[in-house]
């Protein structure tokens, strides 16, 4: 009798389960904080949903978080943003755009020696509030700035 274990349903399920366990253990080890790309957060269509998917509870607007960007973005396809946090133990910085189809644009988990100062460029469909969200010691802080867009970046 020839029975390859992979064609046997139960054996396959057992092995697949074992493999995924091994894989998840392996991928968890070198990570800083988050295990995998947070699909739920990136799919969120409201700020409340995005915050929930990111585990954000009652974020506070803080003067120690700075969102550096120009007031007017001539080209919504390329809007430079810089977020700086002066809050000790800042471990995560995110950029969210309230009026984009999906709020969350980018999330950065920082290592212990990484300065809480991140610059990136994002797309904006229209004039909107942009939020720099900072996580420090498990608490969340924000800086909000309205950026006017004269030419949208999500058109086609």
């Amino acid at each position, binding site marked *: 009798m020839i029975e390859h274990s992979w064609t046997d349903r139960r054996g396959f399920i057992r092995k697949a389960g074992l493999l995924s366990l091994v894989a998840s253990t392996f991928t968890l080890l070198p990570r800083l904080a*988050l295990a995998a790309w947070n699909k739920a957060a990136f799919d969120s269509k409201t700020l409340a949903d995005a915050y929930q998917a990111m585990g954000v509870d009652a974020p506070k607007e803080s003067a120690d978080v700075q969102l550096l960007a120009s007031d007017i973005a001539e080209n919504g396809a390329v809007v*430079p943003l810089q977020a700086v946090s002066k809050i000790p133990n800042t471990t995560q910085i995110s950029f969210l755009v309230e009026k984009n189809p999906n709020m969350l644009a980018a*999330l950065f988990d920082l*290592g212990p*020696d*990484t*300065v809480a100062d991140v610059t990136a460029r994002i797309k904006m469909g229209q004039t909107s509030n942009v939020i720099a969200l900072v996580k420090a010691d498990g608490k969340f802080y924000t800086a909000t700035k309205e950026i006017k867009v004269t030419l949208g970046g999500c*058109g086609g």
Partner: protein
Amino acid sequence: MGNPMKIRAASKDGVTEVKVLMNHEMETGFRKDASGAPIPAWYINEVVAKLNGKVAMEAQWGPSVSKNPYLAFKIKGGAPGDKVSVSWTDSKGDTRADEVTVS
């Protein structure tokens, strides 16, 4: 294999500043081509940056990061001769890794 990145890493006053310019379409999935058919989403969703093999930053991105993404950050420590490596994975599973020496 994706297109090469441009990475600059410079050490100054005990801080290593890293600037990365990636080469990627970052297609949102909201655009349509000339015939009106939707262009499928295709974007970098994970980025890992390391200094001397130690993870300094892990980023998760959505499609609203700009085309040909630019990223800048700073790491305490690091000296000329150290290695900074950056790698990304996109939504199609393509990857790219590049390394530079800190100047």
